[in-house]
């Protein structure tokens, strides 16, 4: 809640010599913070932010009380002066008091109702100081009576209203809930169709007040008004909030009522209004005081233990200092050994809920800036880090592999969802989206990366990007699955490049990936150009080319290869630590072998077969080259293998190596009808 405070007004209640700037700093450090100091005309204004729990400080006098307590605690000279007329004798000035009949249908709607009639009113402009202060606070001055209600609201935080008494038909007021279909024309000339349950007042004929929000136009004070009903209440906060929400109509008064009002402050505000009406309009009290207050606000007390206080503060604060701070804020204290019993002032009953709240009061007024700064000691817990810790390393590695990280929104549109081939039914959907652009929680990151490629494809040719984020898969009667996913998209690359990158990632994560053909159709990945990634028998990812119809739908000009890898799943597999193997003492014999085999024969199968036939002499089989060429024959490919022969007792002789090589050749010829290229 923000409030504008004219400094001269504030100084009427806080008597101090310190400068506005010093005061603003002191307030920010210990109380409501001053966000801006502005000059409007001759007036200096503090723009203050008051936290929502501190309704008592949402007024000039409330800020004055805070200021005074803060200055006192900092040993700066200051004293608090209360506004005049808070406790007037409200007996009628006339022998024949006027009567007003009040009916309150439901006491929960209005915990306190006060009103008084004044007459002999001369409507005229308010004195200059009132007009100036109102306009400095952003409120237009109207006349001396209407201005009183606004002035008191700003000054004390208690909204009030003024009726032309002679416009209240039948001198009767009934306070009740609105019924369906009712409407009222408020002061500003607007007609509001009321929802059920708004608090309204009706005279003997019609609605005259939309309580707590704005008065009715039909009963307003005008230039010809002679008799005025000064009117101060507390209303049910929830009822006010519901109406302001339903009507989308929030006034200064409503924003105060909907946060709750100090019931003990209602009558002093009315008294102050009478005081100002007498001063500025020549008013005389023309009725008995009406004060309907069935359930008196209970006062709260808490015990505050000094040891506990000092544990929070980390210092030993003198007990007298704590007591002085609490007193300056209006708390009453009774001292026992090592603890005090604290009675909360009426205006703080809403926000003070326990002894810890009292500790906060003492700590902030004493000044957080006056407390020392000490890192916690004590043992540090020994806990396993989550999968996120490795993600930092992984992201850095990807960066050094030439990829650029993007971060895209996890909330996507229905259109984007459709493109990723998911049904809306099984996707996490928001019940209150901000716009259609952000309606579903994405089950895959790839469409967002494709979007990023589209945005950048005319800026750069080769776009190599990745993102790490949680994705969301809906689950029945439970929270969605929220696994951490790494997605990569590369333009200008082929399957083997993205597969190689995936293998790099396996190395970085110290895991062993297996690649297998897709067994099921995937909505994004081209069936014949992709592979699933497995660890043991669990699928942990997918890698390959994005389907061309999807590339077209996105209007991407090049092909895109991609990988989507589930880091949460991978984290559950133990990482592989390689054991030391002694470095061979004798150099190996290296033999290259080129063969022609069927195009569809997986290289993995070829290597498996070679390894199964060869003796222990064969240490390694590497693939040097794979190519297809019409000269090789239809549906054939050429594979060049490098065979590495090695033993521990010495370098193998060429005879030994040749023997094994021949065995391999004859086995490949038999098994795969392989032909050796000479």
């Amino acid at each position: 809640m923000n409030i504008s405070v004219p400094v001269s007004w504030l100084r009427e209640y806080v008597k101090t010599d310190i400068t506005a700037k010093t005061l603003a700093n002191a307030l920010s450090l210990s109380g409501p913070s001053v966000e801006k100091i502005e000059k409007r005309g001759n007036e200096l204004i503090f723009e203050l932010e008051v936290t929502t729990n501190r309704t008592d400080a949402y007024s000039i006098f409330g800020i004055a009380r805070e200021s005074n307590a803060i200055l006192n605690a900092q040993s700066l000279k200051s004293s608090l002066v209360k506004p005049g007329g808070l406790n007037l004798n409200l007996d009628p000035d006339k022998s024949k008091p006027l009567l007003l009949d009040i009916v309150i249908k439901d006491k929960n709607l209005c915990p306190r109702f006060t009103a008084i009639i004044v007459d002999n009113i001369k409507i005229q402009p308010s004195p200059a100081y009132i007009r100036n202060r109102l306009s400095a606070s952003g409120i237009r001055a109207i006349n001396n009576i209407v201005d009183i209600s606004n002035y008191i609201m700003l000054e004390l935080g208690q909204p009030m209203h003024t009726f032309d008494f002679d416009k209240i038909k039948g001198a009767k007021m009934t306070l009740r809930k609105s019924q369906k279909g009712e409407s009222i024309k408020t002061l500003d000339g607007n007609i509001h169709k009321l929802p059920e349950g708004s608090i309204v007042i009706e005279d003997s004929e019609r609605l005259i007040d939309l309580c707590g929000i704005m008065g009715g136009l039909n009963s307003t004070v005008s230039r010809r008004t002679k008799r005025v009903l000064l009117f101060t209440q507390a209303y049910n906060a929830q009822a006010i909030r519901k109406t302001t929400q339903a009507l989308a109509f929030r006034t200064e008064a409503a924003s105060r009522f909907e946060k709750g009002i100090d019931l003990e402050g209602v009558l002093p505000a009315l008294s102050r209004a009478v005081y100002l009406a007498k001063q500025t309009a020549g008013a005389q009290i023309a009725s008995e005081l009406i004060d309907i207050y069935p359930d008196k606000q209970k006062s709260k007390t808490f015990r505050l233990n000094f040891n506990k206080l000092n544990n929070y503060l980390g210092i030993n604060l003198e007990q007298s200092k704590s007591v002085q701070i609490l007193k300056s804020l209006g708390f009453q204290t009774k001292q026992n050994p090592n603890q005090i019993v604290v009675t909360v002032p009426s205006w703080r009953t809403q926000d003070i809920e326990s002894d810890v709240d009292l500790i906060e009061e003492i700590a902030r007024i004493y000044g957080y800036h006056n407390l020392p700064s000490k890192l916690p000691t004590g043992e540090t817990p020994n806990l396993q880090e989550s999968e996120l810790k490795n993600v930092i390393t992984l992201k850095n590695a990807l960066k050094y592999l030439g990829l650029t990280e993007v971060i895209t929104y996890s909330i996507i549109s229905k259109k984007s969802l459709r493109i990723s081939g998911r049904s809306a039914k099984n996707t996490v959907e928001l019940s209150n989206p901000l716009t259609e652009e952000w309606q579903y929680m994405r089950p895959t990151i790839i469409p967002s990366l494709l979007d990023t490629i589209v945005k950048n494809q005319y800026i750069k040719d080769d776009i190599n990007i990745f993102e790490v984020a949680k994705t969301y898969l809906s689950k029945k009667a439970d929270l969605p699955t929220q696994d951490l996913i790494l997605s990569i998209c590369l333009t200008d690359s082929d399957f083997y490049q993205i597969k190689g990158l995936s293998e790099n990632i396996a190395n970085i994560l110290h895991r062993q990936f297996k690649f297998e053909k897709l067994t099921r159709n995937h909505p994004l990945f081209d069936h014949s150009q992709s592979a699933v990634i497995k660890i043991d028998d669990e699928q942990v990812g997918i890698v390959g080319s994005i389907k061309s119809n999807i590339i077209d739908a996105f209007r991407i000009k090049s092909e895109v290869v991609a990988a989507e890898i589930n880091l949460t799943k991978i984290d559950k597999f133990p990482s592989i630590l390689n054991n030391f193997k002694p470095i061979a003492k004798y150099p190996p014999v290296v033999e290259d072998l080129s063969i022609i085999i069927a195009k569809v024969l997986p290289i993995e199968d070829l290597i498996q077969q070679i390894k199964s036939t060869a003796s222990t002499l064969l240490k390694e089989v590497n693939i040097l080259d794979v190519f297809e060429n019409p000269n090789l024959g239809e549906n054939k490919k050429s594979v060049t293998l490098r065979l590495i022969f090695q033993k521990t007792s010495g370098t193998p002789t060429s005879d030994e190596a040749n023997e094994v090589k021949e065995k391999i050749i004859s086995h490949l010829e038999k098994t795969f009808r392989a032909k050796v290229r000479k």
Partner: protein
Amino acid sequence: MEKRIRKILNEAAKEFESAGDESEIDQLYVKYFGKKSPLNKLTKKISTLDPALKPKAGQNINKAKSTLEKLFDRAKRNVKTKKASATKYIDVTAPGKKITIGHLHLVSQAIEEIVTIFSKLGYSLQSYPEIDWDWYAFESLNMPKDHPARDDWETFFVKAPPNPKLGNQVLTPHTSNGQVREMENVKKPPIRMINIARCYRRQIDISHTPMFHQFEGLLIDKNISIPNLKGTFDYFTTNFFGKNRVTRLRPHHFRFTEPSFEVDVTCDVCGGKSCRICKSGWLELGGAGMIHPKVLEAGKIDPKKYSGFAFGWGIERTISMKTKIPDIRLLYQNDIRFLEQFS
């Protein structure tokens, strides 16, 4: 004999030194290592020596041979570098040949820095749900049913039937849902946890995006005080922003901490003068406070035995404080020209 060896070595050193090209070096090789080399001649003479002197002489000759080898290697190297520097002109100001390196997103860079700083203080990085139950996001954090944050114009809700005990599913508007989850997980303090996640709120403007990253720290132990919180922030700010940036604690109000603070850092966009991004020269870094006893109770930790503090803030905010990015929305437009500005 020793005299002869020394003489041979001295001569060889001179000759190798003055050798101008590889062919000269090769000739010298033949001269000193060939069959008719002076050392070989000496070797043949060993047999004529007194048997008592033979072993010593052998050793000396071997030593001399290895010295000669070193001389030869050095001479050969010298000739090669001489040749290279003579034929290849190097422009030291021309660009080198680089391997392409990509770029990390600013958010990740900030996360890495933050994690590194808090790791040193013994905090561990945990991962908690980004879609969570109302209980963890609000109710257990002492936020009453009518709290504005629980209104559906501030927080995103998921279309799903509520859990009878834990309530609705929400997109977490803060990382504080990790607090009670961490307490349940660890059970017995000490706790030092950081939780970094994507968070969601229904707002978008110059300093807000509907999705943002929040960072949350939680420390619970015996006798934890406000000065401990201050110390932690001072440590963080000096390490993250640098020694010239100052922090302050301001009183604030959060339901799940008491006392509550707003932590400010001097604004770097305007240098503390006041601008459209900051408030009177101060930027809100984030919220903090001493954990409310009710929150500890919700996490089944005895508030009479333990106390602690929690803090959290938007990663994006810290980035705009550090890099002078004028509009936070730039971070998620993913323009490659923006992304490539940051390594």
